[in-house]
Structure formats: structure tokens, C-alpha cells
């Protein structure tokens, strides 16, 4: 009985996924033909994912928003080249990781004063809360190396498999597993150090 219910649920889930994919393929076809409403639909469908990853990788709502725009401009430019039978998400993860890497490099050349101003204006415009922007995870992520950070965000926060994360990072799955493991250890140690600091 339970097995039958589980089988039924699995069938429903895969049916929903298939429906979503066929809707996505249709939006891509329409967007290619110049239908902006269809493209906006694609953006709406994926913007949460792109923004969330960008924000976790850049720790800055303003930069994350810029990066998300870059990602969707690239999507717009690449519409003709997509195989509509394939899901869009893996491509979006890969481009988001790439774009964020470029933004992080650009940002490292920016002065601290500029960054401060950008943060202020972003916090003003954005509905990403200030409390979240300063949470322990944020501080932990900032301590990781760029690659450890990407691996952790994709594996543990986004829940991608090592293989999927490896595709987004353009490296081997075994590298992703090691990077994510090191990142988990660093986060744990940081959290413990903060707790010790609070107790003292």
C-alpha cells in the first residue's frame, strides 16, 4: 500500500517536472521569436536560483543583482543555441558561477568606499534582509577560498550532486567532493570559534 502510494507520488513528481520542462521549452521557442513576455517568464522561473547563488557567492545584494542581470543577458544572447529538450538549470548554474567569478575579480579592484556605498544602496533597494546579510553563514562563506565556497554553495546549499556541481565548476566530481568537505570543516571551526568568543 505504502509502496503503491510512493510509486504514485514519484510518478506525479516526474510528470510535474516533465510539464515544467515542456513549458520551459515553449517559452524558449517563443522568446527566440522575439516574445518578450515569454522571456520574462523564463526569468521569473529561474531568478530566485540565480540570485540566491550569486548572493551566496558574492555576499553583496547589489553585486548579486548585477550578476543576475548579466546571467540573463547571456541567456537572451544564447537563446538560439539552446537544445530545448534539455533543462536550462545546469546551464544557468554554470553561467552564474562564471559571472560571479568575474564580478568578484572586478570587485577586488574596487575600493572599500565604493563597496560600502554599493552595499548601502543595495540594502535600500533590495528585499534581501540586512539581518540575513550578516548571518553566521555569510561570515563563514567569506572565510572560504573561492573554489571551496562555490563547491559548498552548490553541494550543500543548492543540493546539487557532485557531478552536477562539477559541471558548473568545470572540474572533476572528486575535486568538488574534497573542496566541499574542506569547506564544511572550516565552517564548523569558525562557528565553534565564534561560540567560544561569545562565552568568553
Amino acid at each position: 500500500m505504502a509502496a503503491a502510494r510512493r510509486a504514485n507520488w514519484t510518478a506525479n513528481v516526474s510528470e510535474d517536472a516533465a510539464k515544467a520542462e515542456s513549458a520551459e521549452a515553449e517559452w524558449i521557442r517563443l522568446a527566440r521569436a522575439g516574445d518578450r513576455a515569454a522571456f520574462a517568464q523564463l526569468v521569473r522561473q529561474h531568478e530566485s536560483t540565480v540570485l540566491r547563488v550569486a548572493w551566496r557567492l558574492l555576499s553583496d545584494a547589489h553585486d548579486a543583482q548585477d550578476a543576475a542581470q548579466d546571467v540573463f543577458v547571456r541567456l537572451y544572447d544564447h537563446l538560439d543555441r539552446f537544445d530545448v529538450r534539455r533543462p536550462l538549470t545546469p546551464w544557468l548554474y554554470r553561467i552564474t558561477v562564471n559571472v560571479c567569478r568575474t564580478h568578484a575579480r572586478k570587485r577586488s579592484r574596487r575600493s572599500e568606499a565604493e563597496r560600502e556605498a554599493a552595499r548601502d544602496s543595495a540594502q535600500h533597494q533590495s528585499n534581501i534582509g540586512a539581518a540575513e546579510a550578516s548571518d553566521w553563514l555569510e561570515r563563514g562563506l567569506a572565510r572560504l577560498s573561492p573554489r571551496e565556497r562555490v563547491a559548498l554553495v552548490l553541494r550543500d546549499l543548492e543540493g546539487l550532486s557532485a557531478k552536477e556541481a562539477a559541471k558548473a565548476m568545470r572540474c572533476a566530481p572528486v575535486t568538488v567532493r574534497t573542496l566541499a568537505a574542506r569547506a564544511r570543516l572550516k565552517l564548523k571551526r569558525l562557528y565553534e570559534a565564534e561560540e567560544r568568543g561569545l562565552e568568553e
Partner: protein
Amino acid sequence: MKCERRDVAIAKLVGGDLSRWRAATLQRHLDTCPRCDTLRSDLAKRQIAVRNAERSFEANRGDVIADAVFARVDARRSSKTGQRFRRRAVAGVLTAIVLLAAVVLQFSTVGEDAPPQVSKVSVTESIPSAVLDDDKPLSLAESPRPDVIIRIETQNPDIVIYWHGDSAGG
């Protein structure tokens, strides 16, 4: 093997990143080592906290991003059109300058080197003055043949050309 050297493997185990065989081997160690087992349970707790923190993120931005993307695509397109227009304008101006220069050069050449156009030609005959000074009447045979002067007026009033042919036809 020292316990610290198992830390990465334990972190992999927590993330589900160990093969079944390696996980089983590690589990046998965890069953007997409180230090490593504590590390495993702490990492597992942190893992849950990370996933919960992520779930609290919600981006609800309407069409802000889509609108920004369209604005950028349109701006890029109009700047491309502008560039094309500017390129064409520059090419047009350069062509006009070259044509103008050619015309000016043509006319300045006419002014400096080429003879002005002839507007009037008149032929006059004159008797050499030396002969006229003599009071003696002249016989027909002796009568001198007059010199021929051709006066050529040009469109330029400053340039008048005289061609003087003597009686010998020189």
C-alpha cells in the same frame, strides 16, 4: 592513521560524498572513536543549519530583473545602431571632403597653369615706322609689306596676348 587525517573523509561522509565501501570502513572507526564520532555529529548539525539558513532566502522581485535585461539589450541595440550611423556619417563626410578637395584642385590648376580662355581675336596691319619717317614717295615695288599684329583678348582682362608677324612672315 591519526584521527585528524580522517577529518576530510568524515566531512565527505556527512555530505554523502563517500563511496559505500569507504563509508563502511570509516563507520567502523567512528563506532570506536568518540573524537571522530563527535566531529561527525557536529558537522551533521552544521549541515542542517546551513540548509535551513538557505531555505529562509526568498527572492520576490517581480519583473525587476527581466525589465533590467530588456533595458540593457535595447541600450546595446541602440548603441549599435548609433555606432553604425556614426560610421556612415564619418564615411560620408570623408567622401565629401575628398570630392571637394578634388574640385578645388581642379579649379586651382585651371587658374594657375592653363591659359585663360580666348574671348576676342583681332588682326591689325601696321607699316614699319622707319619707312614712314622717310619723306620720299615710294614706288609700288618699294612699298613695304605691312607687319601683322594679332591681338588676342582673354577672359582675364589682365592677360592680352599680342602676336607680331613681320613682313617676312616671321
